[in-house]
């Protein structure tokens, strides 16, 4: 699911396309199973901007994750709402993932839910 953006897309456009703006937008894309963003979950492994093309490098918690397509769709949908983004390219990079990749904020959320 995609959380409502806390900043308007116009603001992102005013600042121009930056990696920080992209990461901020990705922080609003949530894991479909837990209320934690894909950034806090440690799935984002890189962001590149080339003109209006945004390239996102992504890994998953498991290669068998049933939500891979859903997460990719949510990323495309959220980033496409940012002014100046013409195309979103997502590359699955197959980096190792384990619980150490979860941010402190993410750990807190999952701890409150009794997941970790």
């Amino acid at each position, binding site marked *: 699911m995609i959380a409502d953006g806390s900043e308007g897309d116009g603001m992102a456009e005013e600042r121009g396309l930056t990696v920080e703006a992209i990461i901020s937008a990705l922080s609003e894309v949530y894991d479909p199973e837990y209320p934690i963003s894909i950034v806090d979950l440690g799935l984002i492994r890189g962001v590149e901007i080339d003109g209006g093309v945004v390239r996102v490098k992504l890994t998953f918690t*498991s*290669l*068998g*994750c*049933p939500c*891979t397509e859903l997460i990719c769709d949510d990323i495309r949908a959220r980033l496409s709402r940012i002014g100046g983004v013409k195309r979103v390219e997502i590359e*699955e*990079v*197959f*980096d*190792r993932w384990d619980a150490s990749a979860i941010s402190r904020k993410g750990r807190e959320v999952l701890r409150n839910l009794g997941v970790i």
Partner: protein
Amino acid sequence: MERDWMEDDAALAAIVNLIVVLADNKYYLGRRLSEWVVGAPSLEGAVAAAALAQEELGHARVLYPLLEELPFPGRPSPLERGNGRHRRYAVSFVVEPWSSWVHAVAGLALIDPAINTMFEHLTDSTYVALARRAARILQEESFHSEYAEGRVRELAETSEGRCALQSCVDGLLPEMLLWFGPQHEPGVEALRREGLIAGENEVWRQRYLNRVAPLLLEVGLRLPAHLSWNRTRSAWEYEALPWEDWDQLERRLRRKAKL
């Protein structure tokens, strides 16, 4: 340069075959395990079967797309999502539904380690896209190995379980020895020449036996195919394998193993 080896026709054909063999075995292993999600002997077993099936299918998911990026005419299509295909590049043990939970344990204990043996020799492949997937798959497979070993030990605690497991081992292990191919297989030589894979047929087979045979012996099972450890040579020895019954392209027995 990653692209150079693609101009080597023999290596390209061999890597396409290797990828579809690995992917098909993963796919069928996942399919077979998923059928035991509601038939495992315990709730824990059922949950584990679901997790294992999901991961095996996930491994197939990331392997099949490699076929599409390789410039090889007539390359096999993925089996996912009900896509039919005449050739099935998987061991005979997994292409038909399993009749008991013991088959699921045998599949996990004897097929998964064979596939992992190949991935271990692919982590430094000059085909980087495959190498990255191999490393990630191996990370996830450590749980599978632990689970399989636990279930083998559990089954072997009773004479009935041990007998059923022995039957599966007798039928499946000889096919897995064939699966690594005859020594100096031309396709493998092409893969080695291009740095696409490490090791060779007999090295893989010995590595596989080092992984699976000690556990089978420890729990009181007999090794088929006159398998034995030669201390002088520090190697496993076995009887002549029935290569005439083995399909080298699909890497499976032409007749289904009798279990």
